[in-house]
């Protein structure tokens, strides 16, 4: 039995987890929308993996056509509302904004996108067109995360059937269970799922493929399969004390926050988080917000080497989370079977422990954010011939998302190794477009801003390879 316990009462916990980027009021949105220059061949579009016509939807907001703005966004990216909240816009669309390097702030594209799509999500109004022609083709999507949602929505829009199999209680994947609560509440993800369900996608939740439902059965019943199964368990440290009851994985800790009332989430007084990626930041920030006296990141490399985005790091620091760099865990210490501290060694510039440098930090809760393992074993059980690439990623054709097995597609973290929600949606959509071509022989041109200068993507479209700009 762990000694962790809830700290904050209900009202305080909710207040602490309020979203950090509030919605625009309508006058604010119009004012911001009017700042947009409406660039020709706009770089923000090129920087968006789903190729949303950003200047187009922004001008619709400016011209009091908010519903049309939502239609533009959701047609290109069915998870446009959650992406508006969780996309690292500073390194995507907003990072590419032509105003960025002038003496101006870039257009607040994320908040405008949220403004346009919030209302549609609230009213449940269907703004995205669904083809009246039905092909009779059926696709099974395994895993209910953003990649499958992006693929399934596009498939039904094009006139095919899509059935999503999800082992958890709710679909949405990390959008429902794994986004920092103060960025997006799980209800938002569930509202998006509902919108996709209304489009005609069928969801079968609580079903573990391979256990509850044999893969062969799926292959018999469906014309194609899309694998959007994400990543597996968190990596293990392989140090003494790792199995103590107060040692948790960051993914599980964040999922707990999303599956139960905030005032019942248990944590320690002094929390340490191992690792310094964006998930580690989400974990440490939420622990601090939920009442931990101290919440500290322990990272074996230097400040410059962390994989978290700069703005995430800044956010955590502003919440008085602490950071220790160049330290590696050696042992998690126990007292009477419970975590009482962590023994660390200082590391050299190659992240190797320095002999004799060990010291102890007091803590009563250890959260590991060391990345997730791949689902190699499961995948090979399901599809023994499936070709896996470096690090266990599913190998796919980058233009179609088809795997080494014809008719089996993959996208999202399982195929890209771990990227943003927007990348997952784009990959799902790309698979759907190729499936459509396979089913009907008819090619669908992705929404791309064409140029007449014969310049191939990435110029002219963000659909294939988004332009990444440095954070």
């Amino acid at each position, binding site marked *: 039995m762990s000694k962790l316990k809830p700290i904050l009462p209900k009202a305080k916990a909710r207040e602490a987890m309020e979203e950090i980027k509030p919605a625009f009021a309508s*006058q604010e949105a*119009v*004012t911001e*929308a*009017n700042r947009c*220059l*409406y*660039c*020709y*061949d*706009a*770089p923000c579009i*090129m*920087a968006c993996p789903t190729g949303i016509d950003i200047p187009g939807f922004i001008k619709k907001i*400016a011209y009091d056509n908010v519903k049309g703005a939502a239609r533009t966004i959701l047609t290109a990216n069915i998870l446009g509302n959650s992406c508006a909240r969780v996309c690292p816009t500073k390194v995507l669309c907003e990072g*590419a*904004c*032509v*105003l*960025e*390097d*002038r003496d101006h702030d870039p257009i607040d594209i994320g908040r405008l996108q949220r403004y346009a799509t919030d209302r549609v999500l609230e009213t449940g109004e269907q703004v995205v067109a669904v083809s009246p022609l039905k092909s009779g083709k059926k696709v099974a999507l395994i895993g209910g995360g953003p990649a499958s949602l992006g693929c399934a929505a596009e498939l039904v829009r094009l006139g095919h059937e899509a059935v999503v199999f999800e082992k958890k209680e709710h679909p949405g994947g990390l959008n429902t269970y794994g986004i920092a609560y103060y960025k997006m509440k799980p209800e938002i993800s569930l509202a998006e799922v509902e919108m996709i369900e209304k489009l005609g996608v069928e969801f079968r939740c609580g079903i573990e493929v391979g256990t509850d439902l044999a893969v062969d059965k799926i292959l018999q019943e469906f014309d194609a399969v899309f694998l959007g199964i994400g990543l597996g368990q968190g990596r293990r440290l392989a140090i003494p004390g790792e199995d103590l009851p107060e040692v948790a994985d960051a993914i599980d800790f964040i999922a707990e926050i999303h599956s139960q009332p905030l005032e019942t989430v248990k944590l320690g007084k002094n929390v340490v988080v191992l690792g310094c990626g964006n998930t580690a930041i989400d974990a440490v920030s939420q622990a601090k917000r939920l009442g931990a006296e101290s919440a500290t990141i322990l990272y074996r490399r230097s400040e410059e080497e962390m994989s978290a985005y700069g703005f995430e790091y800044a956010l955590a620091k502003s919440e008085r989370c602490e950071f220790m760099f160049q330290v590696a865990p050696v042992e998690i210490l126990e007292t009477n079977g419970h975590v009482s501290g962590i023994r660390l060694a200082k590391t050299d510039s190659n992240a190797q422990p320095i002999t004799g440098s060990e010291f102890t930090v007091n803590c009563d809760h250890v959260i590991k954010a060391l990345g997730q393992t791949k689902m190699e074993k499961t995948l090979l059980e399901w599809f023994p011939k499936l070709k896996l690439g470096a690090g266990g990623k599913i190998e796919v054709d980058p233009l179609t998302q088809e795997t080494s097995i014809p008719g089996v597609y993959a996208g999202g973290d399982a195929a890209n190794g771990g990227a943003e929600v927007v990348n997952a949606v784009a990959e799902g959509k790309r698979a759907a477009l190729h499936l459509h071509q396979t089913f009907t022989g008819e090619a669908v041109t992705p929404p791309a801003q064409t*140029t007449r*200068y014969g*310049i191939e993507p990435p*110029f002219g479209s963000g659909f294939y390879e988004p*332009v990444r*700009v440095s954070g």
Partner: protein
Amino acid sequence: MADLSINFAGVKSPNPFWIASGPPGNSAYQCHRAFEAGWGGVVWKTIGEAIVNQSSRYSALQLNGQRMVGFNNIELISDRAPETNFKEIREVKDRWPDRVIVASLMVETREQWHEFIKRSEDAGADAIECNFGCPHGMCERGMGSAVGQNPAVIETIAGWCAEVAEIPVIIKLTPNITDVAQPGRAAKAGGADAISLINTINSITQVNLDTFCPEPSVGGQSSHGGYCGAAVKPIALNMVETIANDPQINLPVSGIGGINTWRDAAEFIALGSTSVQVCTAVMQKGFRIVADMAEGLSDYLDSKGMQSVEELRGRALPNILNWENLNLNYARIAQIDYDKCIGCNLCHIACEDGAHQCIDLVDPAALGVGEGPGRLPGKPVPKVRDEDCVGCNLCSLVCPVDHCITMIDVENGKERLSWAEYQAGVEAGTMEPIPPHP
């Protein structure tokens, strides 16, 4: 420091900034506030037989999120009794002897004009302004723009005024006509001492798409109103110039229409205005705006080495010619500064779709330009095809970056040639016709 004082048809004003006839000059209270803020004069809200107003009177044009870019009203002249207005004029004049008060008048018969001019003079007004401009309500009763649209009537009424007035008579013209010079000449012929313009323009600002009633709504119905505010400035400048440049008129001009800033005021003065009148900007922001106008104009005059407003007056008039007298051989082209270009490529699409198809998008490496502010690496940049550029200015107008696209003179060694000279030359056989554009 430049001298801001003016002499308008014999009336001295400490500065050229006057409140135009309208809601801000409706009472002694407001005039005191205007003068405290620094206005040089007030044209009182038009006095006539007291009228009854409608409820809901104003409407506005919003543009790209900006409020009151244009403004309209269906309010009539003063709804206060003439004796109240004249009593208050006296009150204000006694307290502010160095400021100008102009009584704006609108009545019907010769006797009434004589009476109201006498009462204005008795109240201490420095001048009268005949309101021949109001385009709503009063014109239905044969006054306001109904007078201003008929030069013969203008001349008659101006004559009635001139025959008795001991103070200057200013005729305020309506823009709701084809050629403003005609009513201007009629005013001159009738004996007017000065002209003010423009009054408001007939307008409907917007239609409510739920009720299908235009604004302002009077119980679900509306009427056309008088349009004013920043949006009308170009129309007003054109008409002020027409009057000021007309050799047959040659009267002092008080410029009105969309003046918000010192720069607007300076432009009206450069086109021949002696005083300028402001109403809408005050309705939006209050009397305080005059401080900035006076400061800005003074600094501008200093920067140009001008000693007085009078030195600026009419400075732009010689540069306005008929089209046929402009130089056909002058050429300019657009030049893009790649150190400033942010890569929005708005110039390209504007030229491509809206003008003369002479800005290409090219690989920056081929052009030898590096990364610019905000431009993604390798993103195509606009390039002007010099030989095809007609110098229309459109690209420089749409470019969102100051001084990024400049229009530069092309030295083509050709002598000045007007359309008139060219026509004559071709007719005489001394000049080859210019081939049509391909």
